[in-house]
């Protein structure tokens, strides 16, 4: 029995290698963090997917929701504490104004390479046909109301609905 199972798995492996890999058709991207550097990768990947003709949707959860809250979306900050990538001593990063300074530097550099502010980027991504969803559990936990969100949000959905919508997609967690 073991021998047969092993043979079968060998056959399926060799079949798989004969076929060329299929191009990605659909991605569902989860944004779970609310810092500037936590939000942009998901947005860039969603926009990039649409540019390649790949179907895309965005699901914002936990602090990632800040990226679709009208009053907060264009005021996200770079984390200068607890972020080894900043190459800055923790105590220095904690000085008042340090996060604002790092954020404004980063925004300047992003503008140079045509990365738009969060609000404008979301409009662009949504216009490109990417659906935008907020996580039901987080919305309830933070007592958020529909009017808190930007116009691009297509709905507040549960995890179950997220998985339904992600049928056939690659799920990317950021």
């Amino acid at each position, binding site marked *: 029995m073991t021998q047969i199972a092993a043979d079968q798995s060998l056959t399926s492996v060799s079949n798989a290698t004969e076929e060329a890999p299929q191009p990605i058709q659909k991605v569902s991207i989860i944004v779970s963090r609310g810092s500037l550097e936590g939000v942009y990768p998901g947005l*860039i990947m969603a*926009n*990039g997917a*649409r*540019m*390649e*003709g790949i179907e895309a949707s965005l699901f914002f959860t936990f602090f990632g929701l800040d990226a679709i809250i009208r009053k907060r979306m264009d005021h996200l900050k770079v984390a200068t504490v607890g972020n080894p990538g900043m190459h800055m001593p923790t105590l220095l990063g904690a000085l008042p104004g340090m996060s604002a300074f790092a954020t404004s530097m980063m925004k300047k550099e992003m503008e140079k*390479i*045509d*990365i*738009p502010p969060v609000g404008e980027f979301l*409009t*662009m991504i949504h*216009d*490109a*046909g990417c659906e935008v969803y907020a996580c039901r559990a987080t919305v309830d936990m933070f007592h958020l109301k529909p009017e808190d969100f930007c116009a691009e949000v297509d709905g507040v959905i549960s995890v179950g609905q997220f998985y339904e919508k992600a049928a056939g997609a690659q799920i990317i967690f950021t």
Partner: protein
Amino acid sequence: MDTMTVAGKELALDADGHLANQSDWTEDIAREIAGNEGIPELTAQHWAVINFMRNVFAKEGDAPSIRRLTKESGVDTKTLYQIFPKGPAKRAAKIAGLPKPKGCI
């Protein structure tokens, strides 16, 4: 190297299937490439995007990003995705006889 034949002329293509020599490009060739890409007719809006891309490329050496197309070509994002289905920046660059855009946005 791949080639495409337009009106009896054989044109060299790069690895992405875009025209290898921009000097080969003519408006008739643009129509031919568009046809191959599933765009049967190039409208005034298509031409606005194509000409904008060619102008930016001539000045800067890279095709503009989708954000610049949205802001400066006079055609908005929704329309761009409608008239160049399945990836406007890449597709418009191909029709405009330019290499695939390098930028991420």
